[in-house]
């Protein structure tokens, strides 16, 4: 099994900004080990000079003329906000004074 310890999973969860309980960490370490063992199969393919493919289409920048045009109005944009004030999203403070 791929070496992915409980501490490794905790570190990854921290990077991904997800709190995991002790039980979740224990379970996920085992599950991810099994999954990683399976997906490691991609390493059997000789890398050679194969060009990596990140997307099925050749991507190009799409631009439009820089002209003013109608967009989502303030009322519509704020329609999903639990709280609003003076045409702005109102959110609870999460940072201390300092």
């Amino acid at each position: 099994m791929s070496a992915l310890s409980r501490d490794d999973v905790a570190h990854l969860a921290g990077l991904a900004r997800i709190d995991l309980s002790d039980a979740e960490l224990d379970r996920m370490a085992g599950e991810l080990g099994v999954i990683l063992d399976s997906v490691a199969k991609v390493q059997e393919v000789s890398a050679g000079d194969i060009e990596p493919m990140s997307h099925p289409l050749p991507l190009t920048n799409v631009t439009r003329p820089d002209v003013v045009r109608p967009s989502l109005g303030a009322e519509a944009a704020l329609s999903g906000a639990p709280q609003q004030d003076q045409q702005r999203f109102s959110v609870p403070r999460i940072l201390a004074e300092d």
Partner: protein
Amino acid sequence: MAHALGSGELSSVEIVQAHLDRIAAVDADVHAYLHVDGEGALAAAREVDSRRASGEELHVLAGVPIAVKDVLATKGLPTTCGSKILEGWVPPYDATVVAKLRAAGMPILGKTNMDEFAMGSSTEHSAYGPTHNPWDLTRIPGGSGGGSAAVVAAYEAPLAIGTDTGGSIRQPASVTGTVGVKPTYGGVSRYGLVALASSLDQAGPCTRTVLDAALLHSVIGGHDPLDSTSINAPVPSVVAAARRADVKGLRVGVIKELGGEGYQNGVRDRFDESVALLQEAGAEVVEVSCPSFDYALAAYYLILPSEASSNLAKFDGMRYGARVLPAGVDDPSAEQVMAATRDAGFGDEVKRRIILGTYALSSGYYDAYYGQAQKVRRLIADDFAAAFEKVDVLVSPTAPTTAFKLGDKLDDPMSMYLQDVATIPANLAGVPGMSLPSGLADEDGLPTGIQILAPATHDDRLYGVGAALERMLLDRWGAPLLTQAPELSAKGA
């Protein structure tokens, strides 16, 4: 239905009301809808009826109601992606697909259940509870678009929209006895489709017949300047191909790597019969080898989580989604709020894939996992290109098994992932695919599906072959496969 509307035999209001009644009768058991918009659908139906009465020329599907997977933004209708983190969100705009449905005069019945953020193959990973397969309520309807397939199979909607990242339209179609199409990547706009894996996601039709799928495909397809990955090129008519329904002289390749070990006997038997029918109808059938397909599942389960970990980073309680404050922490930091929000808002499968993607993209492992998976993706695209030099379409069973029991694979993610083994290569390469019913497996009497694949932008070939095969199978069965499904109302709530 479209014919009855056009001839005045039925009104759109009557059809919508009949579907709302059906939903009221059976959806407590099936749980295919997350949100039903009866008032909105009836209002749209009344408008279409009025326009038709005034002599206005309407789209052929005008007045035919439809259900939409809950991953597409719908103005004024909740859009949750099957997740608690988006619970209660009502978008202020329509996805392009939805806007096109409305422009065609199609009333939207509601939003269909799905695996959370389209991650899963069984619709058991919805935060709002699983959908049940109309053929057997103890079984899964496939995933992630199990809701969209189930509403069509249960006659709760005549048509539905799904999305397919690794098979989420085709595999549910296979296990519910319906037709599902993943169009060519870029053939249908992704604007307003909440992204799971941007290079793989594709919206498409879920229907009961191939012609229905073609008509719906023609409504939602086409270039969209709001989507930078939308193809801006003319494509052959899928409706004309479905009406032509001809395979004479066509070269059909059976994919050697899909259909062997791990495939249920009944699935293989029905597939072999369908291939024999194509041959009888004048198609030339040959076996084609795509050796890199053996690595497709592994590559997919590295590429998808990598893209998903990036796409879902925005659901952190700061930029998007619900906000949860960590318990017992005074003056929490922004990071602590994000972590608590994402823990409470995401389900197990989403967390698992985000962490897997974080690992695959992390320093020291990138080349061995994500980079290597991208090279496999190239090899798979090359396999398709080589195969389509020899044949016009490729075929395989859609899913390795019929619908399994709810709960059977929940504790075994790899076993669940194997459900997509035959459908994933098409997403990696961007080619179109269709699943249509191929009959019932002898072992369990449940639906099986045959998958048809074509080169990119040649979606019309799916419809030509699919419609021809459907016609031959109908002749054999004497009636659509869905007529053999158990009557739901007998079990209804």
